[in-house]
C-alpha cells in the first residue's frame, strides 16, 4: 500500500510547478492552500488545482516574485521615458480592459441589445442588414457584436501593485472584453514600453487566464455605467431605452 507523500514533499512539488508557470506562491498563499488539499490526491490533479486557485487570487497577495527583475521598474508608467525594454518575464494581473477600436457608445448599445435578449437564440433581432445593392465581393461580413474585436487597452498591475497601461498592438488570442476576466493573469516577456504604455504583441505576452471573482463581477456590473461616463453621458441624457 502506497503511503501518502509527506506534506513537505507535496509542497515543494507544488511550488516548483507554480514557479514554472511564472506564478511562484507566497508563504501566505501556501498557508491557505495546503490545509485545503488531501495529500493522497494524484500530483497532476493537485498541480492543476493549485494553478487554478492561484490564478483566482489577487496577484499581490499570492505571488512572490523570484527577483526584482520580475517586477516593473517603479517609474514604468512614466511618460518621460521614450522607450525601454523590460527584460525577462514579469507576471501581471488585469485590472481593466477596454476596446478602443470602438466607441464607448456603440458598446453601450450592444450591451443594451444583449439586455433586451436580442442575442438569445430564437430571440435574435437582426439589426444590420447587408444590402445587396452596396455589397461588392470584397466586403467582409459583420462581426458578432458580443465579441469585442479591439484593439484593447488594459490596465495591469505587477505583484507589488505597480500599475501601467498596456496596448494590444497586434491581435492576441485570449485578450478581449469577454475572453479575459478582471484579475486574470498575463506573463510579459521582454516587453517594450513606450511613453509608459506596455506594448502587447503575440511575442511579448502569454495569457495565463484566471479571474478574481469579486473584482470581475463588480467590473461587469459597472461596465455599462462606466462606458456611458466615458462616452460623456451626463445624467438625464442618453440611454433612455
Amino acid at each position: 500500500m502506497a503511503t501518502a507523500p509527506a506534506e513537505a514533499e507535496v509542497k515543494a512539488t507544488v511550488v516548483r510547478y507554480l514557479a514554472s508557470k511564472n506564478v511562484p506562491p507566497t508563504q501566505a498563499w501556501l498557508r491557505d492552500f495546503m490545509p485545503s488539499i488531501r495529500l493522497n490526491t494524484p500530483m497532476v490533479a493537485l498541480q492543476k488545482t493549485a494553478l487554478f486557485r492561484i490564478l483566482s487570487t489577487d496577484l499581490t497577495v499570492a505571488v512572490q516574485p523570484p527577483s526584482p527583475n520580475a517586477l516593473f521598474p517603479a517609474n514604468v508608467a512614466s511618460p518621460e521615458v521614450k522607450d525601454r525594454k523590460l527584460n525577462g518575464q514579469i507576471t501581471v494581473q488585469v485590472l481593466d480592459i477596454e476596446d478602443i477600436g470602438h466607441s464607448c457608445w456603440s458598446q453601450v448599445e450592444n450591451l443594451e441589445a444583449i439586455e433586451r435578449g436580442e442575442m438569445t437564440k430564437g430571440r435574435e433581432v437582426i439589426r444590420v442588414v447587408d444590402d445587396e445593392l452596396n455589397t461588392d465581393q470584397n466586403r467582409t461580413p459583420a462581426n458578432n457584436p458580443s465579441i469585442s474585436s479591439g484593439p484593447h487597452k488594459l490596465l495591469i498591475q505587477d505583484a507589488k501593485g505597480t500599475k501601467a497601461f498596456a496596448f494590444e498592438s497586434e491581435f492576441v488570442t485570449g485578450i478581449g472584453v469577454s475572453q479575459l476576466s478582471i484579475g486574470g493573469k498575463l506573463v510579459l516577456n521582454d516587453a517594450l514600453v513606450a511613453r509608459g504604455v506596455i506594448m502587447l504583441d503575440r511575442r511579448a505576452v502569454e495569457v495565463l487566464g484566471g479571474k478574481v471573482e469579486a473584482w470581475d463581477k463588480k467590473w461587469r456590473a459597472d461596465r455599462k455605467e462606466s462606458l456611458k461616463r466615458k462616452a460623456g453621458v451626463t445624467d438625464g441624457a442618453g440611454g433612455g431605452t
Partner: protein
Amino acid sequence: MVTKVLCVAEKPSIAKAVANHLAGGQVTVRNVTGNQYLKNYCFHYNFPTWGPCDVNMTSVFGHLQSHDFADQYRYWKSCDPSQLFEARIETSVDESNKPVAKNIETQARYSSILYIWTDCDREGEHIGAEIRDVAVRSNPRLGERGKTVRARFSNIERAHIINAARSPVPLDEAQANAVSSRIELDLRTGASFTRNLTMSLQGMLPQQGDGQKSQVISYGSCQFPTLGFVVERYFRVRNFVPEQFWSIKVMHEKNGIKVNFRWARNHLFDRMVVVVLFERCLAAKKAKVDKVQTKPTSKWKPLPLTTVELQKCGSRFLRMDSHRVMQVAESLYTKGWISYPRTETDQFDRGMNLQALVQKQTQSRTWGQFAQGLMNGGFAQPRDGRNNDKAHPPIHPVNFVEQTALSAEEAKVYEFVARRFLACCSQDAKGSKTEIGISYGPETFNASGLTVLERNYLDVYPYDRWTSSQELPQFRAGEEFEPTEARIQDGKTSPPGYLTEPELIALMDANGIGTDATMAEHINKIKERKYVDTRPRGRRPRQDDNDDEASDYEAPAEHEAEPARGRGRGRGRGRGAAGRGSAAANGRNSGTSGVQEFIPTTLGVALIEGYDNMGFEISLAKPFLRKEMELKMKAICEGRKTRHEVTQETIEQYREVYMRTQQRMQVLKDSVRRYVTNQA
C-alpha cells in the same frame, strides 16, 4: 355536345387579357347585372385536355368571402376581447361581392369544368378555393376530382398564356389552407388586441378635432414589429452620444501625385495610445513598402430582381414608396409588359429563353443599343441568387413597350425592370486594383487605386456606381521613403439616420415580418394608423475625407435627398384596382436618390415602449412571434403541419401574451401618459 368551361380570373383586367389571347379576337362580351366592371367573355377554344369547348371567362375582385365573428361577438362591447380567441367565425359573401358570386353560381350551373386563373401565389390559391366553394353550391359535380383545375402562369404575354391554358394543374389545397389559417389568426389576434388596446387607452388620448370619433388603436401582428424597428432606430438617433476619435494620416508625394495612405487601424478612441504610436512612426523616419499588388477585380452585376429588391430600389432610385411601386408594377403586369411582380426567386430557370426577351428590348431608343450588343455576343447567363419560390421567375420585362405609351410612373418602373434585366444578362464590370502596403515604424498603412477597364453592365444600369480612382505612382516592394507628411487627425462619430424605407424593408425581410408580397402593406398601415410620419431625408453634411466618418454605423447608400414624392394610395394588395399612374414629376434616373425616412409619432413610441417595458419574454413589439407564424404558414404549404395544428398553437401563444398584457396594462398606460399626454 360541346364541353363548357368556366374560367375565373382574380381581376377583370386579367380576365379580359387572357380571353383576348385565347380567343384571338373572337370574343363576345356580356355585362353582368349588379357590377358594371364585371364582364363575361364568351369564346370558343380547343383545349388539348377537353377538345373544342365553349368558354366563359369571368373574374372576381380579389377575395370573394369575408370572415367575421358571429353576431353576439361582433360589437365592441358585446364581449370580453379575450373571448375572440375562440369565438365562432362566420364566412359570408359581402354585399358588394354578391353579384360576383351570383354570376359564378349561374355560369357554373352549365359548366363541366371550372378553370381557375387567379394569380399564382398563396392568396391566389385561396381565392381559387373560394371560387370553387361558390361554384360547387350550384354544381356539385365541379367538386369532383379533375373538374376544378387552375392555370399556372407568371405573366400575361400571349404565348405564355396559351401555354398555360394547355397545361392545367390541380389547385394547391395546402397553400389555400395556409391562407385560411393566416386569415383566422389575423382576425382573432387583431380584433382582440385592438379592442383591448382601444378600450384601455382611448380615454387617455386627446380627442381629434371636429368632434370626430376617438381614435382606434389597432394592433396587427406585423404592424407592431414593423413599428418596433422604426422606434428602435428613433431612440438610437435620439440617444446617440458623439465621441472623439484619432487617426494617423500619412501622405507621400511621388512623381507629382499625392498618395494618401490609410492607417490599418482606421482610428482609435484613445488619444494617448494614438500619440504613442504616432511618435514611434516618426521615430522610424522612413516608411518601407511591404507589398505592391495589382490584381484584376470586378463589380458584380446585380442579381435577378425579386419583389423585396424592387421595393427597396423603388424607394431609393425611383422616388416611389414601396406601396406605390407595387401598385405600378401590378399594373404593368396586368397589361402584359412585365412578369408577375410578387416573387422571391432570384435565379432564372436554365430553360428560359432569355435571349428572346433581350431581343425584344432592342427596340428601345434608350437601351436598345445595349440590348443589341448583348444579342451580338455580349450575353451572359445571369447570376443565381439563393432563393427560388418555385412559383415565379424573377421580375423581368416580357414585352417591349414605348415609354410614351405608359404613364410617368409606369415608365419609370418599366425602365428600371428592363435595365435591371439587361444588366443581369450582361457581364460584370471589370477593373484592376492596385494595393500598396507600407510599414512606418510599428504601424501599417495602405493605399489602393482602382482602374475601371470594362464598364459592361454599368452602361445600362446607372443605379450602380463604380469609378476609377486617382492613378497611383509606381512603388516597388522593399522601397523606402520618408513620407511627405504624417499627422494625427481627429474626428467625431456621427449618429445613424432615421430608418429609411429600403432599410425597413430589409429589416422586415431579414426578420421574417410579412411576406415579400405584404411588406409594403404593413408599412403603409403604420403610416395610416398615424404610428409613424415620413419625411424626405434631408441632406446630411459630408466630410471631404471618407476616413473621417465614424465606422460605427453602416452609412446608408444614398448621398442626397430630394423633395417629397408621390404617396401610394389604396389598400390591400391592390387586387382588382389596377394602379393608375399619376402624373408625377419624372426625373431622369441618375443614380442619386431621394428617400423617405420614418419617425414614430408619440403614440407609436408609447405603444412600443409600453410593450417593451412590460418585460415579457416575448414582446409583441419584437419579431419573434410573427416570424414563427410565417414559418408555420410555410410548414402548412409544405404539408408538414395542418391548418388546425398551426391555428391552435398560435392562438395559445397569443392568448398567453394577451393575458399578461392585461395584467400589466398599467405599464402601457404609463407609457402613453409619458409620451402622449405628457403627464409624467
